[in-house]
């Protein structure tokens, strides 16, 4: 997963970068399968690997030439950014190793589809019906916005 994400940000062929992103996302889905969250893994595969990566590949094909290589970023910029990212990573790992996580040994709740559906539409304690409705409005707004932005103006054609 790490190797694929590294290759996704360093590959100079843009289409390959997108395919490496696909592999990194599929690795994430495999991780979800390993901790027994089958529904989430399926959603990850469908929405991320199936939807977003296909969208990205489409936009690459529409906006760049297939054999075009990206120009190399300036070495100074690469150095500064790498130092920044590495510094942040080291800081995070330091904080992680200092903190002692209390791993709970409670039995795991079954993340079955019916359980998820009841929680998602529940409006009592621990229900998620409000974010569910908000996200549906957001998705509708994003869909309309995307259509309006990408639509050719009537006078252009």
């Amino acid at each position, binding site marked *: 997963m790490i190797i694929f994400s590294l290759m996704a*940000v360093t590959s100079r062929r843009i289409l390959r970068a997108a395919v490496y992103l696909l592999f990194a996302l599929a690795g994430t889905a495999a991780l979800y399968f390993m901790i027994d969250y089958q529904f989430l893994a399926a959603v990850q595969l469908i929405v991320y690997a199936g939807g977003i990566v296909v969208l990205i590949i489409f936009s690459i094909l529409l906006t760049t030439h297939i054999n075009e290589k990206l120009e190399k970023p300036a070495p100074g910029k690469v150095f500064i950014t790498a130092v920044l990212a590495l510094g942040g990573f080291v800081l995070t790992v330091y904080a992680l190793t200092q903190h002692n996580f209390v791993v*709970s040994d409670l039995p795991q709740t079954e993340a079955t589809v019916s359980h998820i559906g009841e929680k998602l539409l529940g409006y009592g304690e621990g229900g998620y019906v409000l974010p569910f409705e908000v996200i549906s409005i957001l998705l509708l707004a994003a869909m309309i916005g995307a259509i309006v932005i990408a639509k050719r103006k009537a006078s252009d054609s």
Partner: protein
Amino acid sequence: MMEHVPISHVLIVTSAMFFIGVYGFLTRRNLVTMLIGVELMLNAVNINFVIFDRYLYPDQISGHFFALFIIAIAAAEAAVAIAIFINLYRNIRSIDVEEVDKMKY
């Protein structure tokens, strides 16, 4: 299957993934590849939510729902971003950040 993997190892992997996304976002100059960096960061945070939920609070499945909502928001964001890229490309034949300095025509 993951019982013998300590939580800190998973968290180190996800933080590495997050900072790789930061690196990609800052070094790339093509808008689509910057979007790939953003997706990597979102994905790393998503794994973090799920792992915390699974290891520390296995009796509730809240992290599961956070991850679901983040996936939905990421999909919406990618759709709008790509619509903007296509419109930009149609207007100025380029999606390089250095050349995109006008937002209005």
